[in-house]
């Protein structure tokens, strides 16, 4: 084994504690249950060249020299239409001076007019506490979660979302940030596409979403036939088109 390889052995800690049976937070689809995206510390980089960053001993949690908080950036990739409902900061802050901060930024497509959620940053876990949903070496556990970003709707054609965070010593480590979101179905349009699915139909919004996405063109004659049974043949077309199904 090469010497360099053995360096990474330092990172190998207690696999068993990670892989123990746990129920997942399994949602990835759906408009009611919250889905999560994890942005680890190593995805955060200084916003300019020439800065020094590094990792805490035995971790992938990251710091940046002369940071002062909020100075490393990470992209946030979510589908258009997703609604962000929570932003969580996971940090290891073991000193009694500064805290580790984190914010969600929303900008226009030119990177201007940015708003921070929350405006003051998620920095309240400082002063010797460890902020995380997980315990660190048996230390105190605190989760810093912000729900003020509740009205942030992702629109990848209109602007950008990214995360900013950080601390500036090995005792102020950014472990990562977790963004919770739900998918949304577009609001119903003003004018119906099909004669037999008027605005008043309880499935109006959903049928319109289906046709707008190109999954269906209706059953002919300007109708959708909402009360006709779905055949297995039609189901195959819906699913294959909706998911863009592939074969090897």
């Amino acid at each position, binding site marked *: 084994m090469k010497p360099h390889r053995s360096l990474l052995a330092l990172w190998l800690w207690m696999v068993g504690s990670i892989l123990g049976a746990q129920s997942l937070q399994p949602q990835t689809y759906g408009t009611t249950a919250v889905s999560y995206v994890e942005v680890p510390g190593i995805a955060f980089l200084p916003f300019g060249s020439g800065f020094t960053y590094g990792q805490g001993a035995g971790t992938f949690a990251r710091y940046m020299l002369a940071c002062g908080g909020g100075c490393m950036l990470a992209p946030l990739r979510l589908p258009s239409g997703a609604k962000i409902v929570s932003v969580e900061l996971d940090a290891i802050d073991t000193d009694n001076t500064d805290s580790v901060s984190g914010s969600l930024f929303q900008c226009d497509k030119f990177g*201007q007019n940015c708003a921070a959620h929350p405006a003051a940053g998620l920095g309240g876990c400082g002063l010797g506490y460890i902020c995380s949903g997980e315990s660190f070496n048996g230390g105190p556990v605190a989760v810093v979660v912000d729900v003020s970003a509740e009205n942030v709707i992702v629109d990848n054609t209109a602007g*950008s979302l990214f995360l*900013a965070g950080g601390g500036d010593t090995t005792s102020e480590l950014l472990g990562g940030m977790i963004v919770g979101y739900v998918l949304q179905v577009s609001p119903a349009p003003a004018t119906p596409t099909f004669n037999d699915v008027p605005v008043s139909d309880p499935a109006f919004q959903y049928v319109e979403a289906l046709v707008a996405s190109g999954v269906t063109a209706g059953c002919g004659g300007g109708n959708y036939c909402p009360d006709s049974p779905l055949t297995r043949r039609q189901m195959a077309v819906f699913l294959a088109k909706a998911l863009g199904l592939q074969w090897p």
Partner: protein
Amino acid sequence: MRIVIRVACGLALGFLSARLSAQEGDARAAAVKPKTYGVTQLSYYRMSAAEFTPLDTANGSAYTDTSSANFGTAFQRYSTGGPAIFIASPHLPTGALVTYFELDSCDEDPVNDVFADFFFCDNLGTHCGSAGLSSNANGTIPCGFAAFTLPPAGGFQVDNYRNQLTVTVQTQSGTSSTRFAGVVLGYTLQVSPAPQIADFSDVPANHPLFQFIEALYASGLTAGCGNGDFCPNAPLTRGQAAVFLAKALGLQWQ
């Protein structure tokens, strides 16, 4: 201070966007096995060298990419500052089971190698376990790949609320003789295991479709057909199909 940070963030954003576009272009071009959905066959997630950055700037922080003058039309990354560890994180959906790991690299050095490791950490980036290792050793195949399939009994289950996934690539020579193009992860999606208690009185735990109907319910796609039932044998209307699909995928229009 915060205003300064915001301005700087704005300046950096254009660069980030350009970088993202380049990555997505690479991924499309390389997508020879494009599956994204389904619980039986592998889907593939390619991580381009362009998204790997130094683990820390005290350890091999200088890097560059191949130029057409040296390697033809190529895009590969290597360290110019001694042995280095590059790092990146894949974005996979919760519930995905990662079972395949591949390093695409070039090793023309008789002594030094290129290694890739797949790490599984808690959400602080601590307690990391190495779940797979792929290596291109000793220059026997200048530009080939080494594939490593994770143990089938294990695999690694993505949980974005509790865990981080991290991939490292080590280039040991610190020159262009050990360089890499990217890493490929293979995964299948999964339907959650069936719960202990049934939510619908007409779909008990011993129903053959119990697991799937419970998954639909837990994801908020259905509330059943009323009176605590799901009506598993009732025909689905086209209207109901529209609600299921639009809710499941969060369908949008612009």
